[in-house]
């Protein structure tokens, strides 16, 4: 006899092996969505004079497998906002259905108010925070681009923990490491958003996508880019990264110190 009452009357572990208690009732919630499965990589976005530009590639990876090569990760919400998703694709589709139903409900409602990008961001961040608090997170990091109630360009981020922040340029995932330094150099804080043209913003995003394509193993060279201005939303899907130059690859040997 030992001092573990739970072992009394059970087959001895040292004779019969560990007791299989899997048939007993389990405690705690289900664990199906405790890790992402099919994922999208970075989303990048930048504010410019009179609007916001946002871009993401068209790849959905299953681990290291490039599983789906035609996935649109930028979603329009009415003509108020564009939401860029990185992370789990099925959770993205769930959030998209959620947004669809809100859009329909809002359009049928009598109050006549239009949800703007800021409202949407608040809503989505609360959905994400609620789900993480239920230990059942939606495995996404999203960027919301559009306008606030004062018609000023709006860009903000929300992640699977419900953390939110906003800045003149934002990037999720690998883009936070590779694209943000490029954007911060091109558009330093001293430079007001009013000095940044639409064309400049688009070309900056294209440069960032190219760097990501060169260095992020879970990226691809087909992408979508959306422009949100007061005139409306333009979404360009099935874009191709142009002027690729892989000559640099030849010179990379080992970790940098190697010359032969």
């Amino acid at each position, binding site marked *: 006899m030992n001092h573990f009452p739970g072992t009394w009357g059970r087959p*001895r572990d*040292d004779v019969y092996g*560990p007791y299989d*208690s*899997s048939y007993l009732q389990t*405690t*705690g919630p289900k664990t199906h969505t405790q890790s992402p499965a099919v994922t999208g990589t970075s989303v990048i976005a930048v504010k410019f004079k009179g609007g916001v530009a946002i871009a993401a590639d068209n790849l959905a990876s299953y681990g290291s497998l490039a599983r789906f090569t035609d996935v649109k990760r930028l979603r329009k919400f009415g003509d108020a906002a564009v939401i860029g998703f990185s992370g789990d694709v099925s959770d993205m589709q769930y959030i998209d259905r959620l947004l669809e139903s809100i859009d329909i409900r809002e359009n049928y409602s009598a109050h006549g108010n239009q949800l703007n990008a800021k409202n949407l961001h608040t809503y989505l961040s609360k959905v994400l925070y609620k789900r993480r608090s239920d*230990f059942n997170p939606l495995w996404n990091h999203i960027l919301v681009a559009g306008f606030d109630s004062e018609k000023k360009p709006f860009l903000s981020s929300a992640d699977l923990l419900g*953390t939110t922040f906003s800045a003149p340029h934002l990037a999720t995932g690998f883009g936070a490491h590779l694209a943000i330094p490029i954007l911060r150099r091109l558009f330093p804080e001293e430079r007001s958003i009013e000095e940044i043209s639409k064309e400049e913003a688009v070309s900056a995003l294209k440069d960032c996508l190219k760097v990501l394509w060169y260095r992020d193993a879970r990226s691809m060279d087909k992408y979508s880019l959306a422009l949100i201005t007061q005139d409306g939303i333009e979404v360009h899907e099935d874009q191709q990264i142009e002027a690729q130059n892989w000559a640099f690859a030849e010179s990379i040997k080992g970790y940098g110190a190697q010359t032969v």
Partner: protein
Amino acid sequence: MTSLLSHNPHTNSIGYSFAQPTNAGNTEHSYTDNGGSVLGITGKDFAVLAGDTRSTSGYNINSRYVPKVFKIGGEDETGKDAHILLSVVGFAADGLALKERLDAVVKMYKYQHGKPMGVRACAQRLSTILYQKRFFPYYVQAILAGLDEEGKGALYGYDPVGSYEREQCRSAGAASSLIMPFLDNQVNLKNQYIPGSGEGHALAARKPEPMSRETVEQLVRDAFTSAVERHIEVGDGLQMLVITANGIEEIYHPLKKD
């Protein structure tokens, strides 16, 4: 016999009549630390609550302007007519959720009782809110500031599960271990003695006296410029909110962005 004694009480092999907890509900992945620091000091008829505006995750800077100090119980988004300040540092999503809950509570109090909630009552309520989540805490260090019943500056410091205490000054967050000793010395005059007042135990300690607003603001700026030098999660900007009988004043100072 030895095999029975070598039982590890934490493995499934014991065979309790209930299954061992799975890793679901594991709070390990439910939190992140967004860095930053906050600091509060009280005076005779005012209180100052300040925080840096950097938001980090790991070695990344998320944004250079995410405020950590909030007005509580104000009329609208601008926080007009607020009379209480709250700063939260730690996990920013929990911080924001906590701020919104306290804000709602203070507003409801005003609508139900027809008078603004006192800072002492608000301090107790905040402790209760934090303790309600004792087993899945708001991962934040909070500081509450306002003016008490006599119009004196009031400051309350909290731990994540609701233990609280009224203090003259308090620093919290990433660089609190750098700032708090500075405040002990400069605000509460710890380890400061009057020269020539005696030998050994007879040496008289300097007594802390209420400080002027200018002195306090300068102390806050000094504390943060020093913290920025030595802590990578602190920087970008300093947001300082000063509460007096005339209302709340907001002051912004740039800090180093490196």
